[in-house]
């Protein structure tokens, strides 16, 4: 009786998972074993791991994602730290999160307006007598804008882990003679490491496969795995190769998860 009821309760979730998580992943795996003429083959994987193009692309993507994640942490951590000390801190964090409600495309166009040849930033430069900079379609602008987009996703878990720290830990640290800086590096940052890790998990993987931004802000000079997937599915119609790249992305996601989930090892045996 009870068991039946429970089963009934779980059915919608199981169905949901099966349809929208398991099935798509299975399909990606399935497609990755077919070439453009629907013949079963391992050639996609062979091509991916032997051609220089895909491997440089992968290396590039990892490098960009790494930089985006790094900048997101460098900006988010101090910001979360300051906000967690403010009086109306929940309101401030809401303001930081607010841009996630705006469509990505709109934000990208806003940045084009800011960074373009006649954009606001260059107008400011002119006003101060600085030479006009070519900013749009550069690596730097791509990383800057991508980091900006990812900041809310990085800041939220860090902020949550900061506000979870009981004040008495900070007092204990100060009481034992630690300066503010020592308290930050020896107590606060180690205790918020779980927050930083989940921030990395949320930010790093999507950063591997950003395609819209790399087109609009990076001006197609920045080719990531995401751009390649889009290209294969929409332009060359080589779904097999596209899926293969998808599989690589899924596996790298699992690797990042495993790396950031390692339990703290005992020091001093």
């Amino acid at each position, binding site marked *: 009786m009870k068991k039946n009821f429970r089963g009934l309760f779980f059915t919608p979730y199981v169905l949901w998972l099966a349809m929208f998580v398991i099935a798509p992943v299975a399909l990606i795996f399935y497609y990755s074993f077919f070439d453009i003429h629907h013949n079963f083959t391992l050639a996609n994987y062979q091509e991916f791991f032997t051609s220089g193009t895909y491997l440089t692309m992968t290396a590039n993507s990892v490098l960009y994602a790494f930089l985006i994640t790094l900048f997101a942490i460098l900006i988010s951590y101090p910001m979360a730290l300051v906000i967690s000390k403010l009086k109306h801190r929940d309101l401030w964090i809401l303001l930081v999160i607010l841009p996630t409600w705006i469509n990505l495309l709109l934000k990208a166009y806003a940045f084009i307006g800011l960074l373009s040849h006649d954009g606001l930033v260059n107008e400011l430069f002119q006003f101060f007598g600085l030479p006009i900079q070519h900013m749009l379609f550069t690596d730097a602008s791509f990383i800057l804008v991508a980091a900006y987009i990812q900041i809310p996703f990085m800041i939220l878990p860090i902020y949550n882990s900061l506000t979870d720290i009981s004040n008495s830990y900070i007092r204990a640290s*100060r009481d034992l003679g630690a300066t503010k800086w020592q308290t930050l590096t020896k107590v606060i940052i180690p205790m918020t490491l779980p927050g930083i890790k989940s921030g990395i998990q949320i930010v790093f993987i999507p950063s591997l496969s950003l395609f819209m931004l790399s087109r609009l802000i990076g001006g197609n000079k920045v080719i990531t795995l995401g751009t390649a997937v889009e290209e294969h599915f929409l332009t060359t119609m080589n779904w097999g190769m596209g899926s293969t790249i998808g599989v690589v992305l899924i596996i790298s996601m699992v690797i990042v998860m495993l790396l950031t989930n390692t339990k703290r090892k005992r020091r001093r045996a």
Partner: protein
Amino acid sequence: MSKTIVELKNVYKKYDDGFTALKNISFKLQEGEFYTLLGPSGCGKTTILQSIAGFTEVTSGQVLFDGKKINDIPANKRQLNTVFQDYALFPNMNVFDNVAFGLVVHNAKKDEIQTRVHDALKMVQLEQYANREISELSGGQQQRIAIARAIVNRPKVLLLDEPLSALDAKLRKDMQYELRELQQNLGITFLFVTHDQEEALAMSDEIFVMNKGEILQKGSPVDIYDEPINHFVADFIGESNIVQGKMVADYQVAFLGHQFECSDAGMRPNEPVEVVIRPEDLVITTPEKGKLQVKVDTQLFRGDYYEILAYDKAGNEWLIHSTNASTDDAIVGLTFGPDDMHIMRYNETEAKFNHRLESYED
């Protein structure tokens, strides 16, 4: 002659919301003594510790350490340490690293850290636990590690905020002995906070009884128990029978329609007073021999004594501790000597109270 190490002079603390948590607090702590702040919840005990440790700024008044004003010195520069109520052991470090923290932040050398952490752990009898994680310790063990961490910097004063309140009754008793012994071995000043009067009486050299942001009475456990300054202190420290009376003349007090010889003096003739008699000072006899007659209502066996509740004709409640049982509903007599009564005046300040006691007590 011992030396004053911490002093508070006319300290007031008003919080941002306008609430005054401390009103004119003044006291001195001597080197090597065990002091207890005793008072009900919310009376300002933690606020006093925080203003000494440097976690809260006092609104007015002076905090002195070793004769120097430390009001504006940050917590990390004050040479005293705190054992927190929730221990606040860093969960991301093991026992060794927790205890070593105070040395590491002062850039001590590796081998010095090793020996001093070992010594501190030995003091609390947990030397084998250096490599344990904090989550692998029992509550009592965490409590000792918190103490070891606080004494590793060899402070002159240790502040302890209700360190035993999270422990069960048996462990609590053991830790009371251990803490007292530790304090004597270290020879440093302890300022201990509790709202448990038995704990305060058992451990302290001197007790400060607080209520509503004020210190009502300072004194040794015996003084405070035998000569409470007012109704609140008498009631808060141990059990007591308090009746209203009148001070007829020096050494003569009247209550419940009789006049008794007592050992208190220095009041106005016919001044209204309160009379305290501790339950263990009342002796049960026959109604004829008794100074008062009461009717036994209920009695409880407490192991080493009977706790007897009785009422007099005026309806006052009397609590009596007796080694022998009585009979329910029996009319019995109560006797007590002149020294068993303690007389309290209404609204007497501590200074006046002490002055009056000195005037006739030698």
